[in-house]
């Protein structure tokens, strides 16, 4: 097989773009773990519900997917606030295994409620058919937009967390909850903001995903595992690192597909994460020297 520049280019770009989308999925999960120390498997379920919401809006002609997404994001932010108050408040105090079970239960509830209401069928939104071509590389317009949105939100989030007062406060309470309380930060409110942001990110992820791929209720499980694995690889303390790790995984997938096959690429990705964890247990991109 000839690995011509266009073939390689196609692989690189698609891999990077898909990886950014994976990163967007992982960021919300990472944020809530980093701040509230909650392993939230239900994150995948939220993404899928958003996808259904956007689907309904688009199919019924009410709104274009991106517009629906614009509505979904603040809506989910508000919902996230409420969820933290009701469901998640006690979760941060739970031990690891309790959290896993609790959020997994929540994931089941979300996923199968979606299946109950919407059926198990596969859906996807028809694409505009517009694409960008250069040098033999063909990129779907939606994919580019999705990748750009993902990157944009990652940068925005990074800026928020490192430059704004609220962002720094959130990071402070994540690093040292007690210390943050002692200096007068309202850690509960900060956790709430973090959770709300996490939901908003899920909404973003759902919106861009639905413009790009097929979905059905059980995607939620795949997304939950994907987010988990990405965040473990990238390191839990840094949301931007999760994004980068997502891009990395997207590119590995593309590379593995080109050289071997997608199935083997999956195995290679898992094997790689395994190796990384053993050598650098705090995650590939974590800022900590040791865990």
């Amino acid at each position: 097989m000839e690995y011509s520049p266009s073939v390689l280019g196609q692989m690189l770009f698609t891999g990077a773009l898909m990886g950014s989308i994976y990163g967007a999925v992982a960021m919300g999960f990472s944020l809530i773990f980093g701040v509230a120390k909650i392993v939230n498997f239900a994150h995948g379920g939220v993404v899928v519900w958003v996808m259904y919401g956007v689907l309904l809006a688009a199919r019924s002609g009410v709104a274009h997917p991106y517009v629906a997404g614009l509505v979904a994001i603040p809506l989910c932010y508000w919902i996230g606030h409420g969820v933290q108050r009701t469901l998640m408040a006690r979760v941060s105090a739970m031990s690891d295994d309790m959290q896993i079970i609790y959020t997994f239960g929540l994931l089941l509830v979300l996923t199968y409620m979606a299946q109950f209401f919407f059926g198990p069928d596969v859906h996807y939104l028809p694409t505009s058919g517009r694409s960008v071509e250069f040098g033999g590389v063909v990129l779907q317009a939606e994919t580019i937009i999705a990748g750009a949105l993902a990157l944009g939100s990652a940068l925005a989030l990074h800026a928020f967390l490192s430059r704004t007062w609220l962002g720094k406060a959130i990071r402070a309470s994540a690093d040292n909850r007690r210390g943050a309380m002692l200096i007068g930060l309202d850690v509960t409110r900060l956790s709430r903001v973090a959770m709300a942001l996490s939901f908003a990110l899920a909404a973003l992820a759902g919106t861009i995903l639905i413009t790009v791929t097929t979905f059905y209720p059980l995607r939620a499980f795949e997304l939950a595992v994907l987010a988990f694995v990405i965040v473990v690889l990238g390191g839990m303390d840094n949301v931007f690192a999760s994004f980068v790790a997502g891009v990395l995984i997207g590119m590995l997938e593309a590379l593995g597909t080109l050289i071997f096959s997608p199935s083997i690429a999956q195995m290679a990705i898992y094997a790689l994460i395994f190796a990384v964890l053993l050598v650098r247990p705090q995650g590939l991109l974590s800022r900590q020297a040791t865990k």
Partner: protein
Amino acid sequence: MKSTFWLPLLVVFTLMAASVPFWGSGYSINLLTQIFLFGFLAAAWNFMALTGLVSLGHAAFFGVGGYATAWIYLNGGANLVVGALTGMALAMFLAFVVYWMAFRSGLRGIYFSGLTLVLAEALRFAAINTPALGRSQGLELVSLHLPPYLLYGLTVALLLLTVAGTWWLLRSPLGYRLQAVRENEGAAEALGVHTFRVKLAATLLSAGLVAIGGALHAVLLRFVEPESDFGLSLSLNLLLGTFLGGTGTVLGPPIGILVLFGLREGIARLGELLALGSSGIYALQQVLYGAVLMLVVVALPDGLVTRVQRWWITSRGASAQTRPAAASPDSSRAAPAVRPAPPAAMSPQARLRDDSPSAANTPYLEVIDVSRSFRGITALTNVSFELCRGEILGLIGPNGAGKTTMFNVISGIFPAQRGEVRFKGERLSALAPHQVCHRGVARTFQIVQPFAALTVLENALIGALARHARIAEAREAALAALAQVDLHAKRDLPATSLTLQDRKMLEFARALATGPELILLDEVMAGLNESEKSQIADKILEIRDTGVSFLLVEHNMRAVMQLSDRIVVLDHGKVVATGLPSEIAHDPGVISVYLGRSLAHAPVSRAA
């Protein structure tokens, strides 16, 4: 008390289980075998959970066991036993390699869970892509015809053995150490527990048993394939079942699995009753199942077994309340006879050494030129001092002076980057905390960390296990240590029910139980009122008289001055002054370090 509750239950169960082959159809026997197999798997998973680590990838070992059995059956002459044993050995080897590396890297919490999950998934994909293993279709153990009651009997036997094994383990030295590690690894390490070895032992045991389960499963269903054998749902079900019943308990895992199965069946039947049309029912069933899981976590965080046990205890009402009360008069009446005379018990070692004339005044603990920095921040610079046997040496200094770092270096939590620490002439600096403990140096922690799930006696027992291999002897030593700090009467109470002062005494007792010659006390007086402080001070002096030396870090000037024979003053990681309390109190350098006020008013030490 516990055994009288569960023992009749177990007997009834065994009888019922043994009767099944006589009246059950092939179908029932198979179904029960599957349920008991999962109960056995959960009990095996439980061993791993005893270390406090949540493994989401036990399917890796299960699958290795199953596939090895299947492959050897098909290619190696239809020998099932060889296959199962090979699978077990492979799984244990895999576990050894993986967890050895993981523990060395210090993987914990969600990272560890992630590692295990990734391992199982990697193996699943490897199986999917390997032609020799049948790829996605897996392997079939064709023409394998074992009578169902044989498999059933084997499964029941394994389940009972594992449950019994768990009961025995929890009462063995390894079991106590495991519980300590699970509660608080750092504290356990300081008490001489070789945490790495303990966790690895539990892991290997767990992996080996789960592999046997995988082998049995392969024989039972006559096939292995990637999803059933390496799938995430298997690992999740083990977690769920064990948690539901109660992680770390003896009967929890199998009971939890039983309840899990029952729950699923119940929801399925409910679905049939409601007759909503199949995809509707299925979806709602899963929703209900998920909701129940969430509810269980909130309502039964310790699992069913623990909850039932507590209910059993409280339902016995008055008799339960009088029992502890009855215990104390009993123990106090028996005390004169049973209670070991503390000085006699503790001092033989110390006395022997005291008697040798040359031993007096030789440096016991030598800190020589120790330097340590963390990521550019220098915590200690060329710190040197000595502690003689039988001495109480006080280490003081303002906040951030490096006192706790010094402790951590001595007790082996951090190595010294330059210089060394010697104890009785031997190097201490390169040792791990548990080794330091075995050499005779114990420590307490600034923030008291009792092992919450254990009783007072059991807490002390952990320390005693550092010196005594057998439970019986360790128990005696633990009782002696408790007696020394006047906690003997409260020995059966849960550690969490103690007051702060008692908890400090418990820390003390734990350290004492390790039979130390030197104890590092890290701010033992913090948080106590005046009378409590003087009680502890008296205790320290009492114990010093039995031959134990002390290195104290304390903020309370009065106490340090009164207690210490000598004082070392640290500031910004350097030794500023060494000498008698009276000298230190008037040393201008020291005073300026502290800005003087409290020091100027400290009374001179009595011991001088």
